[in-house]
């Protein structure tokens, strides 16, 4: 991948000049005196966690804030003042001179219209092209954004395209009128990592070839360091630091920026102190597991007496986890990793193969054996808000398994629960709160405490940090590393993020389309991937400069 690009044209006048902008919703001030500039042909990254105001400032620049927002300060685009423009003037500007792409392409494309038409629309409107002319250009644009068989694809509806292709279509529509500024709000967050890399490559190329200035908003410093020439770091509605990308990453001045850099996945190595014990029956053994989901049989299928082929979410998967080991499962969405987790906790019935705990097939457990199994194997779920019953307080949720399993009475269970709360580093006062009054990271800590309430031996963590901000993510991982040490947990860590998995686990299995494509020691897989797919995964990691060296010095 190429390094950050120098601006194509070095004009004196900034293309976008944001001076002292504050935004207030009612009594809440979401932006405080934000000032920055984007020069023509420059790629500027805006970093920050959710709620830092990074999307708000860009929406303010596009005039997309709701009318309840009170905006003060000055926004100039190419010398023209933007604040206080009427809707008619905005529509002339938006889509023509400045364009925006969003995080979730699916919700910004009209599901009822062919994508070619949707790309042609702004050209008909702004450039007064005829319909056929615009459609012709739309096909060319699809070519430009790297969609193969563009003429055929132009006639597709959005649901016929993959997530990455939809984002490409969004980009094609955004650049159709040759705008000078493109605001990209987390354009790759919803995409799988390998697709993410390709979209970023496309943005860089558009910048190089067309001199398109890009404001790239992302929570991922690694992405920004790879693509941008300058980075602006925001927090709580303020800019805490801005500067050259290299300086921000290598010599951050503000403590928050330093924290953000240190929290990047894979930045930290977690010491494990685990040794492979030879000739041991694995604690958890999965043999030839096959899980299928029946395809839905509709009326026509029944009438014609045909059975649609079932979908195999897992197809002949075998793996083993030894006592005290941490095993990582990596793969993109749809690779079957969550299905594996659900199979281990008996949430779905395998079509073939077995899951064995201590050599005993888990599907044979019933009654008391099953309860004992539940106590030994627990799981932490992906979505922190969805994994807690909204009607129970944190303390109740943690205490419930203790008294329901008859380990202690209800009062004693609550006492133990507050100890667990302490163990996951949550203040006791938060125990009285319901999930909606807690932050995502706090909910996830409650989820971990609940899973540990029964003192399990095996803990399955299914994408437990993917819904969290990077700094919170790093804290949760640290907590998990501590608990693993203190409680001698055997951990199955599932994630789409190879860098997290390789820094946290001893062994890694790489999943693709329900099969294991590669397995081995975490360091080996990351530094010396054998399969094409793994290589692609590794290549798509956005590592901060210098990180690789650090890793090698630790492991070498």
């Amino acid at each position, binding site marked *: 991948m190429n390094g950050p690009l120098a601006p194509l044209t070095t004009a004196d006048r900034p293309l976008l000049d944001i001076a002292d902008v504050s935004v207030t919703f009612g009594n809440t001030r979401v932006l405080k005196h934000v000032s920055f500039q984007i020069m023509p042909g420059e790629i500027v990254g805006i970093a920050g966690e959710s709620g830092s105001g990074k999307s708000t400032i860009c929406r303010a620049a596009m005039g997309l804030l709701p009318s309840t927002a009170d905006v003060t300060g000055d926004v100039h685009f190419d010398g023209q003042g933007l604040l206080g423009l009427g809707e008619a003037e905005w529509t002339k500007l938006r889509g023509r001179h400045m364009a925006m792409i969003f995080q979730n392409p699916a919700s910004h494309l009209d599901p009822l219209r062919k994508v070619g038409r949707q790309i042609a629309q702004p050209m008909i409107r702004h450039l007064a092209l005829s319909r056929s002319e615009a459609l012709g250009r739309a096909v060319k644009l699809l070519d430009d954004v790297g969609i193969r068989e563009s003429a055929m694809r132009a006639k597709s509806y959005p649901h016929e395209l993959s997530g990455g292709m939809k984002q490409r279509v969004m980009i094609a529509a955004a650049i159709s009128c040759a705008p000078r500024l493109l605001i990209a709000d987390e354009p790759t967050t919803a995409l799988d990592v390998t697709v993410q890399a390709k979209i970023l490559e496309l943005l860089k190329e558009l910048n190089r070839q067309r001199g398109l200035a890009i404001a790239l908003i992302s929570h991922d410093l690694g992405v920004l360091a790879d693509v941008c020439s300058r980075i602006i770091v925001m927090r709580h509605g303020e800019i805490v630091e801005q500067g050259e990308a290299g300086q921000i990453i290598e010599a951050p001045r503000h403590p928050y920026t330093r924290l953000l850099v240190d929290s990047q996945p894979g930045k930290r190595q977690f010491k494990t102190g685990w040794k492979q014990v030879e000739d041991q029956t694995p604690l958890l053994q999965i043999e030839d597991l096959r899980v299928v989901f029946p395809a839905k049989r509709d009326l026509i299928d029944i009438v014609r007496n045909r059975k649609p082929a079932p979908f195999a979410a897992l197809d002949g998967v075998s793996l083993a986890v030894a006592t005290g080991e941490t095993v990582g499962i990596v793969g993109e969405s749809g690779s079957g990793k969550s299905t594996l987790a659900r199979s281990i*906790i008996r949430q779905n019935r395998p079509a073939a193969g077995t899951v064995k705990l201590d050599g005993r097939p888990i599907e044979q457990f019933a009654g008391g054996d099953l309860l004992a199994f*539940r106590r030994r194997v627990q799981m932490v779920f992906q979505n922190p808000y*969805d*994994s*807690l019953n909204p009607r129970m307080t944190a303390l109740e949720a943690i205490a419930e398994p203790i008294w329901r399993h008859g380990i202690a009475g209800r009062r004693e269970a609550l006492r133990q629960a507050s100890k667990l709360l302490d163990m996951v*580093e949550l203040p006791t006062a938060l125990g009285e709160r319901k999930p909606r009054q807690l932050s995502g990271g706090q909910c996830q800590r409650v*989820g971990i405490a*609940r899973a540990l309430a029964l003192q399990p031996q095996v803990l399955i963590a299914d994408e437990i940090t993917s819904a969290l901000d990077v700094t919170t993510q790093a*804290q949760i991982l640290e907590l998990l590393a501590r608990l693993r040490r203190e409680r001698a947990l055997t951990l199955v860590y599932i994630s789409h993020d190879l860098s997290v998995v390789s820094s946290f686990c001893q062994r890694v299995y790489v999943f693709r389309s329900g099969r294991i494509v590669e397995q081995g020691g975490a360091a080996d897989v990351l530094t010396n991937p054998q399969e094409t797919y793994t290589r692609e995964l590794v290549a798509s990691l956005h590592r901060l400069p210098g990180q690789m060296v650090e890793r090698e010095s630790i492991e070498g």
Partner: protein
Amino acid sequence: MSMEASPASGATKQHAVTLPWSLLVAGSIVGIWIVLALFAPLVAPFDPTAVDIANALKGPSAAHWFGTDQVGRDVLSRVIHGARIDLLMCLAGVLPPLLIGTTVGLLSGYYGGTVDTLLMRLYDLTAAFPFFVLVLAIVGVLGPGLINFFIALAVVGWVTYARLVRAEVMAIRDSEYVQAAQCLGYSDRVVLLRHVLPNAFGPVVAYAVSDAVLVMLAGASFGFLGMGAQPPLAEWGVMISDGSRYIRQAWWICTFPGLAAISLGLGLAFLGDGLGQLRRGQVSA
């Protein structure tokens, strides 16, 4: 740890949820009717069934604010006592279908399968007929009377509750907290009653209140048609039906019970609406 921005203000904000105005107004209307019904013998100036032929068909006056009917009974006292019957009717008409429907919906939504499919076809079958026509047909077969009217309501009404609860349960069934509860080894009974039902019940309450309007209007209509409450019971529908023969000489006999039915109906309707709003507000908060 400090980075985990805790929504500390969240705890206090929760209490400051502004009640929709409709909820306040509706709550007071329904509240007044409930108080009137509870203390009817104390509030009502006369015995609702005391006949006084000498004072028959007298217009509103200082002694009889709402006038008297064809046999000299005080209309105001009858309207107040009628509230007892009509409110009880709401309760008796709503609770059985609610209980049956919630149970069925809970089980069929959670377990799915063939039973679920069959129950939903039964729903389609019931929903294919207009509500009143079906209730009327069943009462027609069973014979007039309040008890039969309630039976008919239960037979027709439970399906809506079942459908409502089933849809909620199907969404909640796949949520991670239910998976977590299953993974923690809780019995099905615990998962259903403690984790699924409380989270599925919100829309049921909101619907039950608006269902009460339907039941009340149906009760009054059936009373009017002579298929529900039977005279001389002071029920608003029966009163309107009785008074309709005298509407030219004595408009007050049917007007006041009519107004009473409208006010309670509107009150309940707004209450259901407000509860729904409150629930949506809480979800988005």
